[in-house]
């Protein structure tokens, strides 16, 4: 059985890396959040028209340029602090900071990577707040267990939903989506335009994603599954530019490997 301590440290360091990259990007993107810029809060605060006056004032203050900058710098420090180890303070700060940032980007900035970041931080919250109820070991196991279950669900649903799609089963969806990718379109002579190759690739992804429960065969199988997952996420980055997906999912791998050998 993998060491719980090792799993925790790997989880914290990989999560730190993911959060650091995200926060540096958010700091850079402050330029498009200035008044009169595309993502100006002046326009976007209309999303909170339903909220009470005090709530709207709170968010006006939170998203003012100077406070937002301080918030992001604090988040950067808290993320870097995870390399030395997490605490109930850093876990709580990063969790609520992420919620605040996502509301600033109308609920999600980068889709799936936002979901996975929230899941990892929820796992961290469970691990720290849970220690006021149960032992630290049990609290960390619960936190990593939550991350493991959600990560497995992400792969399983992503694969199964394609299984129900005729276009994915016959291979026509793959080149269609790759053409729409940020680094697209595919070259006219790309091998992925070949129907046989596209169909085989599609089925490969679908079966691999749906087979995520096999990690419970043991830590060795889980490590192999995670290695393939890393290649998969790098391919997604290479076609769709989704760099945050790579780091957000990689941060969850220690939880998968730990739980693969923990029962």
């Amino acid at each position, binding site marked *: 059985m993998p060491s719980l301590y090792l799993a925790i440290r790997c989880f914290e360091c990989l999560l730190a890396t993911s959060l650091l990259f995200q926060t540096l990007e958010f700091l850079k993107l402050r330029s498009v959040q200035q008044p009169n810029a595309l993502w100006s809060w002046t326009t976007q605060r*209309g999303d909170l028209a339903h909220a009470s006056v005090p709530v709207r004032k709170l968010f006006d203050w939170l998203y003012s340029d100077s406070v937002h900058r301080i918030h992001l710098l604090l988040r950067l420090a808290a993320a870097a602090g995870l390399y030395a180890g997490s605490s109930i303070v850093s876990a709580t700060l990063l969790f609520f900071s992420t919620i605040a940032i996502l*509301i600033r980007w109308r609920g999600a900035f980068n889709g799936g990577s936002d979901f996975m970041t929230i899941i990892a931080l929820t796992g961290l919250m469970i691990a720290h707040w849970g220690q006021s109820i149960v032992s630290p070991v049990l609290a960390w196991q619960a936190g990593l267990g939550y991350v493991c279950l959600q990560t497995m669900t992400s792969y399983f649903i992503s694969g199964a939903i394609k299984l129900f799609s005729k276009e994915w089963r016959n291979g026509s969806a793959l080149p269609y989506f790759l053409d729409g990718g940020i680094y697209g379109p595919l070259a006219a002579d790309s091998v992925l335009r070949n129907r046989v190759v596209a169909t085989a690739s599609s089925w490969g992804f679908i079966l691999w994603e749906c087979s995520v429960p096999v990690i419970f065969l043991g830590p060795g199988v889980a490590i192999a599954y995670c290695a393939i997952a890393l290649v998969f996420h790098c391919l997604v980055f290479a076609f769709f530019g989704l760099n945050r997906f790579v780091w957000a999912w990689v941060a969850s791998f220690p939880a998968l490997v730990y739980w693969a050998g923990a029962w």
Partner: protein
Amino acid sequence: MTLTLTLIAAYFAFVLGSIVLRGREVSGPWWYLLRSFFPNWRFYHGFGSQPRLFTRIQTPDGEWTEWQMFMPRAKLSPRDLFYNPHNNLLLANQNLVDHLAFDIQTLPDNTSATELVSYQMVMRLARSLLQQQGMGGAGGVVDETGSNGHRWQFRVLQVPPLQTPDDSMAFLESPVLQA
């Protein structure tokens, strides 16, 4: 061991069932802003129409340019794996167009699309695209304040897979705006 295996199998059977039998979707302003807590993991499953933003500008001689489609495109760089703010912003901007398309489909009666936050943001996006592209030819470049006295327009088309965009796909066209 047997109990654990049974529980794992039951969980994934439940997940599979939830894909087939989808319940009522919960919606609301706070649900929308906090939707990252409720991931659906349905990546690239929809082979349906894609909302696309188009812009055009009137040149000094009164002619309208061709509609230009906004399509997030970039050149792959290994550095992007670690730091990719510009391209992630392009994708977030395309999401604005997707949300506007959804908002219009669910717009209550007697409500104007122009009141939507997503409409106002897409209008800003369209204007910023015109600024970046310097559309309008000689003398028609939009300055940094967005003002050059020219008139411009944007529209959103629902483009079905593998089809060339045409006028019949338009479901939103802005009035003529002054740059």
